[in-house]
């Protein structure tokens, strides 16, 4: 007997409800995904410091355990909600729905979701986001985008992080750009260092434009 039913149908329904809700509140939602240690939290610390003055911002941060990242992100004017997945490898739309209800200020300009560090599982779960961002640090292989197409084929932007140490670790920029041309040919690419601040302006300008676009409908 034929069934033909999507296994993640429940997640999709929850994600659709979130998308409706964000549309009504005109909140830009971004879902940041990468392997562990590629600099998601460092990027967000700097991003919040710059966005905080102009926009009402909240962050949902997913981790297997500990609230270390939430503590790092606090103090920049954004509300932070830590989701501890207890070993689960990704965030799903149900966890995000619960986390959103913990955010006191609901009138947000931007909600940033820092997904669990993992290049496979998070890509399968729609969280109702407007933009998916993949992070790739120069300490990882340049070919990560072609090795993990399930993630990189669906991102609107790729942030190449830690470029201040690119030379030291022997990062080949042409190889990385070639891999992105295969796996994510239409993704916007940012090359930056959260530590030195190089390239941060273009990233912040892009996010700010996307926030304005969402407000304008």
């Amino acid at each position, binding site marked *: *007997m034929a*069934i033909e039913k999507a*296994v993640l149908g429940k997640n999709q329904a929850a994600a659709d409800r979130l998308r409706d809700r964000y549309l009504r509140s005109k909140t830009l939602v971004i879902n940041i995904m990468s392997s562990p240690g590629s600099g998601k939290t460092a990027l967000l610390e700097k991003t919040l410091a710059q966005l905080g003055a102009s926009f009402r911002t909240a962050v949902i941060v997913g981790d297997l355990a500990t609230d270390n990242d939430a503590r790092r992100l606090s103090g920049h004017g954004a509300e932070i909600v830590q989701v501890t997945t207890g070993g*689960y*490898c990704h965030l799903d739309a149900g966890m995000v729905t619960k986390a959103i209800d913990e955010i006191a200020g609901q009138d947000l300009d931007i909600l940033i979701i820092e997904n669990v560090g993992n290049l496979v599982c998070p890509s399968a779960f729609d969280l109702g986001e407007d933009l998916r961002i993949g992070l790739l640090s120069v300490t990882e292989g340049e070919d990560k985008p072609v090795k993990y*197409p399930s993630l990189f084929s669906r991102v609107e932007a790729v942030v190449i992080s830690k470029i201040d140490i690119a030379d030291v670790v022997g990062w080949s920029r042409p190889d990385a750009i070639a891999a992105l041309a295969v796996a994510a040919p239409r993704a916007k690419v940012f090359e930056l260092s959260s530590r030195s601040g190089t390239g941060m302006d273009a990233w912040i300008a892009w996010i700010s434009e996307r926030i304005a676009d969402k407000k304008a409908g």
Partner: protein
Amino acid sequence: MHEVGIMNDILEIAVDAAKNAGGSKISALRVRVGELSGVVPDALSFAFDVVASSTIAAGATFTIDTVEATCLCTECGKERIGASPAACPDCGGRSIISNGYELLVSSIEVD
């Protein structure tokens, strides 16, 4: 590696469908898993053995049809194998991924 969770969802769909059809035992379960779904077929088979044992699908034949990633040119309509949505090699048109993200319960056989 969330195949056990995925298997719980698969079995919930399959068991509901079997019960709605008046069945008391599932003898076969077939799923479709895309190359870009983030699900590893071997891990899913393992999860089936573990999770199904306490359900009406215990002992069922579990079959996974894997789906290769393909891209479709939105201009000339040609489809090609692979997960790279780069410009169409034939006409240079914009390509989209047309297959590979699937994760579906295809069918069951009920006794």
